[in-house]
């Protein structure tokens, strides 16, 4: 059964497409750039834009007051002491209107993951990849609020695994896809989160029945088993579309012929 929500306050769920965020590290500071287009909403011009910057996995948080909303479309750049886990920051944007003395939330968007301006990857992946110098295995998928792929930093393997190894992606990504699917299907999640919403789109594009991930989390033993089977099928479809087996075989052929 699809989740039913009541909204008694008229609070607007802002859309990820209405906010663009990026960050860079600068010495001991972190610089966040935020652009938003809220002019099509009827928020009062005197409303404030508030951003909470969180560091997942830690209790570290910064609260930024970006001033009055005005006409609704604006950008702002803020510098603040870097958080303890600066590459993984997550944002919550609120449009707040003071009613009497109480600041009421008129619009909100949770789970924005700003782009790292120093990341030279050609595409911005929905799978967050983070270095962990303490990790005793080459990789590990952890689930906190979103799936995060940790790669070991030992023996300078991080950059190699992330960017150079031609075997890593074909051998590891299908398993990651399967694990993420099971986690999404069997847990209770906030699909308003930008990243989780993108994962849903990703799996539906691979052939997952629309709405399947967002249905009630209570599943029977048979359904849990079915989720596992679906995960494997989607993982196979992922490997087929991206020709992962072929890419490995190609590497092997080249190696054999060299």
């Amino acid at each position: 059964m699809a989740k039913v929500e009541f909204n008694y306050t008229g609070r607007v769920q802002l859309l990820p497409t209405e906010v663009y965020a990026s960050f860079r590290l600068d010495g001991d500071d972190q610089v966040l750039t935020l652009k938003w287009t809220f002019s099509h909403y009827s928020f009062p011009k005197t409303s404030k834009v508030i951003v909470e910057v969180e560091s997942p996995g830690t209790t570290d948080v910064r609260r930024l007051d970006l001033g009055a909303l005005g006409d609704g479309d604006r950008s702002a750049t803020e510098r603040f002491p870097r958080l303890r886990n600066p590459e993984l920051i997550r944002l919550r944007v609120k449009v707040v209107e003071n009613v009497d003395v109480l600041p009421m939330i008129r619009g909100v968007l949770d789970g924005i993951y700003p782009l790292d301006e120093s990341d030279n990857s050609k595409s911005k992946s929905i799978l967050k990849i983070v270095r962990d110098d303490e990790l005793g295995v080459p990789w590990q998928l952890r689930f906190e609020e979103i799936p995060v792929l940790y790669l070991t930093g030992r023996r300078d393997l991080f950059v190699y695994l992330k960017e150079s190894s031609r075997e890593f992606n074909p051998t590891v990504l299908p398993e990651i896809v399967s694990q993420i699917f099971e986690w999404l299907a069997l847990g209770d999640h906030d699909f308003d989160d930008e990243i989780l919403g993108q994962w849903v789109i990703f799996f539906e594009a691979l052939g997952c029945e629309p709405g399947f991930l967002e249905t009630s989390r209570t599943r029977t033993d048979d359904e849990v088993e079915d989720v596992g089977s679906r995960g494997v099928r989607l993982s196979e479809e992922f490997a087929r579309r991206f020709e992962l087996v072929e890419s490995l075989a190609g590497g092997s052929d080249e190696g054999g012929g060299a």
Partner: protein
Amino acid sequence: MITIDVRRWTTLGQDRFISLIRSRPEDLLDQLDLLCVDSDATEMVTHNGAPVSMEILPTIKRRLDLARHLDGLFGPKLPLATHVGDVRLWNWLSAAWMRALVAGSGKDLQKAMGVEDERWVLASNILRYHRHLVSSPYFAYAANREDPKKAMCLLATDVLAPGEVVERIAGKRSLSTGAVCHLATLLYYDATSGALRPGHTSKPGNPKMFSYFFSQIDLTVDYEGVGVDELLKLLPSNFGRWVKLALVDRAKELATGVG
């Protein structure tokens, strides 16, 4: 008092430290003393090319005192400021401070250590991160640096026995800083005695309910942007007995010019 050069665990040291914390041998403290200076298990932390010294004070028992002491090195522009997110440094500090903290507690080692490993091993998980005994007081202090007195609910207890308020308030980002943290201090901390108020864990209006209340209004009210006096008015009546005491302390604060 002893003075040590600050180090951080290497990968090997981190593994051995965690292993020792899990196995808890009888000679744990002796083993940690050796491990803390082992050249394979640790690496020196330097500032401008020089070692960073730290005093280990066996007299420190209270979270506030430990936080202030650590702030002398981790504070803004100080030698360890850029290392504040270094998990292996915090875990090395756990080991370096353990003997002094255990001795100061008057408890035997096993009781002082407690059951959960995350009291000594910093967990990268929002649900357990705040339980690390050495870093947690400092993070609470640093998050309320403008006026740490307003965060006394998180700093008044013993390092080895943080208690229910720390568990409920420090464990949530939105509660552990600013006016909401100040509110929790007014409710549960007695500024006159310098300790948490007796009975603060009992219902109604205990820290667990405090946390639940703010979770409920989180989608509607931007409560982090509300001043402490308005927050006091916002609390429902089941917090009444604490609000009465809080108003008395708040009046004293205002009389002495605390905003």
